[in-house]
């Protein structure tokens, strides 16, 4: 069974998923960071594949991606680093990246390498669902890799329903229409949006702008949990990763 399904079956609430870019802050930090997060009791991790023009990301993640690229991080190297990660890391692992990196690597080879390492799912914010379904869905299925889809407040009802059924593992709910790194808005308009997800069967996590205990708890009222990226990266940079997780959990 896919580890993501396993997670959502065993835990319905307060799921904490952490995002950090591969090779950050130092090139060889990827696996140590994973081990640290597992020890700290994090439920799932998204590893960012750095790309220089990430349309969905705010300045903090862009800067981190840049640093990771400057450190020499590349997809090939990331797979190399993760080769033995499954010996120590058992939580579900997701890779998040932009389509051109994967397309250029070769989709089939990419999926094959993901499977070999034990990657459970992918988040590719700029790969449209239609493109995925027309050309790549069967390949993903063949390797048992989940394609996690994103919805946002502007997503209309028809599209929302389509995303609920098409997503695999869980639905990633973007808290606001901006890029990563803002702070989640706790206003009425967002309540209406978040309330939509309360009613759905598909597991869901809220991401973008979850930066402290308060916003984490708020998100958990509506979804099965939340994803923290920018705030964690800032903690990583200050060498305060462990404290940060302790505080938010």
């Amino acid at each position, binding site marked *: 069974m896919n580890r993501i399904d396993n997670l959502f079956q065993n835990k319905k609430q307060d799921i904490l998923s952490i995002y950090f870019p591969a090779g950050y802050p130092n090139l060889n930090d990827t696996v140590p960071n994973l081990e640290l997060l597992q020890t700290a009791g994090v439920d799932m991790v998204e590893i960012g594949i750095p*790309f*220089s*023009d990430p*349309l*969905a990301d*705010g*300045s903090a993640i*862009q800067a981190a991606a*840049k640093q990771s*690229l400057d450190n020499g991080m*590349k*997809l*090939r190297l990331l797979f190399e680093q993760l080769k033995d990660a499954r010996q120590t890391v058992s939580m579900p692992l997701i890779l998040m990246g*932009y*389509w*051109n*990196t*994967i*397309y*250029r*690597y070769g989709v089939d080879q990419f999926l094959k390498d993901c499977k070999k390492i034990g990657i459970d799912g992918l988040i590719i*914010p*700029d*790969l*449209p669902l*239609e*493109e995925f379904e027309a050309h790549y869905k069967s390949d993903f299925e063949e390797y048992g890799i989940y394609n996690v*889809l*994103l*919805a*946002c407040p*502007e*997503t*209309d009802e028809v*599209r929302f329903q389509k995303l609920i059924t098409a997503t695999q593992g869980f639905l990633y709910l*973007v808290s606001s*229409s*901006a*890029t990563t790194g803002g702070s989640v808005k706790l206003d009425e308009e967002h309540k209406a949006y978040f309330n939509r997800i309360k009613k759905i069967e598909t597991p869901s996590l809220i991401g973008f702008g979850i930066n402290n205990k308060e916003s984490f708890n708020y998100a958990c009222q509506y979804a099965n949990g939340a994803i923290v990226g920018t705030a964690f990266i800032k903690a990583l940079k200050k060498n305060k990763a462990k404290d940060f997780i302790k505080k938010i959990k």
Partner: protein
Amino acid sequence: MTFKDYFKKYPNEEGYFGEYGGSFIPPTLEEEMKRINEAYYSISKSHEFISELRSIRKHFQGRPTPVYYCNRLSEKYGGRIYLKREDLNHSGAHKLNHCMGEALLAKYMGKKKLIAETGAGQHGVALATAAAYFGLECEIHMGEVDIAKEHPNVMRMKILGATVVPVTHGLKTLKEAVDSAFQAYLKDPINTIYCIGSVVGPHPFPMMVREFQRVVGIEARDQYQEMTGELPDNIVACVGGGSNAMGIFSAFLDDKDIKLHGVEPAGRGIDKEGEHAATLTLGSPGVIHGFKCYMLQDKTGEPAPVYSVASGLDYPGVGPEHSMLKDLERAEYHHIDDNECIDAFFELSRLEGIIPALESAHAIAYAIKLAKANPKQSILVNLSGRGDKDLDFVVDTYGLPEDREA
């Protein structure tokens, strides 16, 4: 392939030109792109919109711009070289053609603010002009390197009331300016609209910008025919993103015997990575800034560094429609380096009394080559912009021809 019903079929509904184009964007942008697409179809085809745009073209932009025969240039190099004078379009380049269209659409959609990137500053100036005309706010993102190089255009934007946001990451040129503009747009897609500067970006931009630029080709075809009683043998235009080239190519696609030449910047040489932006010549298919196209990239899919003396041409991607026209071999793409560009810049200035933009000087340089090789043929060049913005930079960097020879 026939080009008979071309404009109805390309792009298709998902925004594809063959395998290029499409819409590779996060869902946060998806809804807004759908809205712009719907608005484009419902509003821009309305009688009201078309009449208003036509009136603007005539009374504000000063269209039609003339087609001009280059007497002395043709005499010196052979061939018959004609220019479509987009340098005489209001604000000094073809860019105003799509900016007035995009801004008019923004007004109908109730947007308050126009956001865009700019390389040479021509698109920024054109958009700032359109914003002033319609009473909209305007925010232009521009790389620091280009800000230093294109000082007059920065001043023009500011005088026109636009905010110029300096972009400080990466190479600090056009690609980074696009990143920055997208970010700003994502912060408030409801009240703002991203008016992209060329036939690039996610659907519907490549289509919209082409449609608004088609006026160039439609006019030029009539004018040329009226002047000469025939059609030209060759069309030449420079290609950055490809808007001015699509504008003029579009009117001649269905004339199989007319050769379409796009000219890319070879910068300091196409054999050196990072020293050129010859995307169609040397690129491979990839996805950048929300669309699929030929792209200069490294093995891992990172956009390659690019360079050209012309700030409006140094982009690692290119319009999806050009990518398709290349594969179909309907258009040919060539390259001209910095030195050839600078020579052409002075040639046109001194032989015809027309100072071209450095971008357009690439097209002139190629037209000169073509004329030398085919002295019996006619060549219609899209002179996409005037060179006032480049004067200081050219003279400071290269000196005057007589100084260089000395």
